[in-house]
C-alpha cells in the first residue's frame, strides 16, 4: 500500500476516523494493528523481522536501565547493535558482500565458499533498524529512559506513517507523544491534510512525471546525446527531491492528522549555499542520525583537521552504503564525504576571494547555490545509474560536450514546465515567510480555497496515474 494510492486514502480515512472515536487508551492498539496491517500489505512474512527488532530492543533497553556496570551495559548495547545490524546485513548486504568476495577470490583462482541467499529486501528495514538503534543507544548514553509499555514501544517502531521510509524518528520525540492524549483538533487536521496534499502534488505531478524522461534516458544509455544526459540529470535531482520530500510530507501530514508531530526531513535543500548546508537540509532525520550516532562517536571534529576529514569520509561512505548494497552508493557517499571536506577546507580561501573582489552578497549566494546544486547533481549521476559503468558513460557524455539539443518528450516536459516553477514559487515563499501554509492562511478565504482547488485539480489532471513506488522504499 503506497501513499499515492486510493487504498491508502481509504485506509487512512478509516484509521483516522476510528482513532478519534476511541477513548485514549484504545488508540495505541488501533494504531499498532493498523501499522502492522499497513506493513503486511507488502509482505506479511517480514512483519516477523519488525517483531524481532521490537522485542530485542525493548528487552535490552529495559535491562540496560537496570544495570550500572559499564561493561554489562556495553554488552547489552553490543547485543542490540548485533541484532539490528545482523538483520540489516543478512537481508540487505549479504549478497553484495558475497558477490564481492567471490569476485576477489576468483582473481585468486578460487570461489567464495559462502553461497548467495535468495531473499527479497524487506521494505523499510534500513529505517526501522536505525530508529530502534537510536533508542538503545540513547538509553546507553543515559539521555533516555526505557519505555515501560511494550505496546507503545512497538508502536514507536512500527508507526505506519513513517515505518517504511522515515523520517527516522527519535524515541525522545515520538514516545512521549504516544503516551499523551491526542485530542481532536480541527486546525491540526486541516494543516496535516494540506501537507499531505502538497506531498502528493510533489510526488505524482512532479516526481512521477519527470521520472518518465529520466527513465527513458538513464534506461537507454548509449542512445542519447550529452544534452539529454544533462537534462535527465537535472530532472532526476528534481525527481528524487519531490519523490522523497513528497513522501515525507505525506508521512508528517498523516501523523499530524492523528495528533503526532514527526521531525522535519527536508528544508528546500537546493537552496543550500554549501554542501555542509545541503546536508543540514537534505534527509535531515538521516543526516542528524549519522551525525549523532556515527560522526560524533568517531570523534567528530574534536581531534584535528585530518581526523575530522577522515570522520566525514567514513560517515558519508557508510551513509552511502545505508542507501543500498551497491558500489554506486559507496561512490556517492564517498563523493559527498570528499565534497564536505573540501567545502570546509576551502571556505576561508573562498571568503577571501569574495572579499578581495568585493563580490556582492547576492551574486556570491547565487553562485554558491548554483555550484552546490551542480555538485549534488554530480552525486545524483552515481545514485541513479544502475551500474558504475552507466554512471561513467553519463558523466563522460556530459563532459565530452558539445551539449546538443536534448531529446524531446513534449508531454513530459510540458507537464514539468508547468509544475516545477509552481513548486519553486512555493519554496521562495517558504524561504521568505517560513511557511507557505501560514502565508496562505492570512489570505482571504476565496484565495485560500482557489489555491487548494487548483492543487487538487492539478493532481487529478497532471498527476501520473498508477505511478511508481517511492524511490526510498528500496532502501
Amino acid at each position, binding site marked *: 500500500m503506497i501513499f499515492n494510492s486510493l487504498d491508502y486514502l481509504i485506509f487512512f480515512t478509516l484509521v483516522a476516523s476510528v482513532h478519534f472515536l476511541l477513548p485514549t487508551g484504545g488508540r495505541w492498539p488501533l494504531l499498532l494493528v493498523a501499522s502492522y496491517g499497513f506493513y503486511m500489505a507488502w509482505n506479511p512474512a517480514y512483519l516477523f523481522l519488525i517483531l524481532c527488532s521490537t522485542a530485542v530492543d525493548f528487552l535490552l533497553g529495559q535491562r540496560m536501565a537496570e544495570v550500572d556496570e559499564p561493561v554489562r551495559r556495553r554488552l547489552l548495547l553490543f547485543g542490540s547493535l548485533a541484532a539490528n545490524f545482523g538483520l540489516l546485513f543478512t537481508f540487505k548486504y549479504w549478497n553484495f558482500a558475497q558477490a564481492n568476495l567471490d569476485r576477489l577470490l576468483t582473481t585468486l583462482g578460487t570461489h567464495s565458499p559462502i553461497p548467495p541467499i535468495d531473499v527479497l529486501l524487506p521494505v523499510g528495514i534500513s529505517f526501522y533498524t536505525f530508529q530502534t538503534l537510536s533508542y538503545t543507544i540513547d538509553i546507553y548514553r543515559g539521555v533516555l529512559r526505557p519505555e515501560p509499555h511494550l505496546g507503545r514501544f512497538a508502536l514507536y517502531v512500527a508507526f505506519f506513517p513513517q515505518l517504511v521510509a522515515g523520517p527516522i524518528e527519535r524515541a525522545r520525540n515520538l514516545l512521549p507523544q504516544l503516551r499523551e492524549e491526542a485530542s481532536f483538533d480541527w486546525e491540526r487536521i486541516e494543516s496535516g491534510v494540506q501537507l499531505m496534499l502538497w506531498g502528493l502534488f510533489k510526488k505524482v505531478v512532479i516526481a512521477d512525471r519527470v521520472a518518465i524522461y529520466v527513465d527513458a534516458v538513464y534506461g537507454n544509455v*548509449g*542512445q542519447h546525446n550529452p544534452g539529454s544526459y544533462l537534462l535527465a540529470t537535472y530532472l532526476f535531482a528534481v525527481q528524487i527531491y519531490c519523490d522523497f520530500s513528497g513522501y515525507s510530507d505525506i508521512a508528517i501530514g498523516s501523523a499530524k492528522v492523528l495528533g503526532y508531530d514527526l521531525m522535519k526531513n527536508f528544508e528546500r535543500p537546493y537552496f543550500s549555499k554549501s554542501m555542509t548546508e545541503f546536508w543540514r537540509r537534505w534527509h535531515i532525520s538521516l543526516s542528524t542520525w549519522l551525525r549523532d550516532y556515527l560522526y560524533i562517536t568517531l570523534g567528530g571534529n574534536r581531534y584535528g583537521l585530518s581526523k575530522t576529514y577522515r570522520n566525514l569520509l567514513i560517515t558519508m561512505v557508510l551513509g552511502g552504503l545505508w542507501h543500498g548494497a551497491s558500489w554506486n552508493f559507496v561512490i556517492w557517499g564517498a563523493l559527498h564525504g570528499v565534497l564536505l571536506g573540501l567545502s570546509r577546507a576551502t571556505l576561508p580561501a573562498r571568503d577571501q576571494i569574495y572579499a578581495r573582489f568585493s563580490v556582492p552578497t547576492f551574486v556570491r549566494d547565487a553562485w554558491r547555490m548554483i555550484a552546490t546544486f551542480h555538485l549534488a547533481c554530480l552525486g545524483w549521476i552515481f545514485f541513479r545509474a544502475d551500474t558504475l559503468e552507466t554512471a561513467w558513460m553519463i558523466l563522460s557524455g556530459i563532459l565530452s560536450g558539445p551539449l546538443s539539443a536534448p531529446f524531446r518528450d*513534449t508531454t513530459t516536459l*510540458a507537464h514539468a514546465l508547468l509544475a516545477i516553477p509552481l513548486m519553486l514559487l512555493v519554496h521562495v515563499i517558504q524561504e521568505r515567510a517560513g511557511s507557505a501554509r501560514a502565508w496562505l492562511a492570512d489570505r482571504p478565504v476565496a484565495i485560500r480555497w482557489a489555491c487548494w*482547488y487548483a492543487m487538487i485539480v492539478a493532481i487529478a*489532471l497532471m498527476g501520473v*496515474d*498508477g505511478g511508481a513506488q517511492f524511490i526510498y522504499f528500496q532502501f
Partner: protein
Amino acid sequence: MSDAVGVRLRSRWLGLVVFVLGLVLIDRLLGFGLERVLDASTPRARALRLAVEAPERNYDGIVVLGSSRATHHFEPSEIAPRLGVEVVNFGVDGQGLVFTRLLGARVLRAARPPAAIVVQFDPGDFCKPTFDRAFVLAPLAGRDDLVRKTLGHDWRSRIKLTSSLYRFNSLGPSLALSTVLPTPDMGDGFVPLRGRIDPDAVVPPRDVCGADPLDPTLAALLVELLAEADAVGVRVAVTLGPRLRDFDGIPEAERRAITEARLVVERGGAVWLPLDESTEAGRFGPAYYRDASHLNEEGARRFSRLFASELAVRWPDLGRLGSRE
C-alpha cells in the same frame, strides 16, 4: 463542549461540506469544458486521436493494431501493393491488449469497416494487464460503454472514472496545445526507427508469464474482439513479430503463453501467423534491429514484405474484399 466551540465546529463541518460540493462542481465544469475541447479539436496524443477518429473513418483494406512493435514494424507501403488493398497502421507505443481491444471495437463500428484487422501482440500481454496504460481512452468513457466497462475493471478504476476531470488525466497540456497548434498528419501510421543495435549488446531474457500465463480476463478481451469482427464479417490475423535474442530458443514459460494464445486465436476463427523469432531468427540478424524488441527501418521493410507474402497465401482473395463498395 461550550456553545462557542460547538458553533465553531459546526461552521467547520459546514465549510468542509461546501468545499467538497465546490470540488464536485469544479470537477463537472472542467470535465465538461475538456469534453468540448476534445470535440472541437484533433487530439495530439496518438492513442486518443486514433480512438476518436476510428469509428468515423471509411476503411478499404487492412488495419494493423498493436503496440510499438506494430507502429514500427508494419510498413503499409510495402504491404499494400503485395495484397492489393489499403493498409493503415494503428499501433501505439506502450499499449497492449486492453487498448487493442478498445480501439479494435471502435474500428469495427465504422460505417465501412476494414476487410481485415491484424492484431500484433506480445506474449506478456496475456499475463501483464495494461489497463492503466489504456486509461488514455478514459475521456471517451462518457460516450462509449465498452470503454467505461473495460477501463472500470476494478473498484479503483470505477472510482477514478466517476470524476469527469480525472478522465483527462495526463492529457491537459496536450489538449491545450491541440487548440492552438495544428495537429501533425499521421500519414499511414508507420513510424520508422533509425539506427542499429550494437551487435555485441547483451540482450537479457525478458520477464514473461509464469506458470499460469493466460489471464482469463485478458484472453477474454481478445475473444470478444474476434467475435465482434466475425459478426461484421471482418477477418482477423494475429501475429507477434520477431525480437532479437542472444540465446537459443524461447523460454518455456513464454513458449507456453504463445501456444495457449494461439489456441485462443484459432478457436476464435482468426488466422495465426507464426512470424516470430522461433521461425524468423535466421532472417532477422542484429543488423535489422534498432533495439532488442524493435526492428529498424530496414528490418521493418523486410518484415512487412514477409508478412504480406504470408498473408497473401492465407487470404488470396483479400484484394477483392478490400476494394468492396
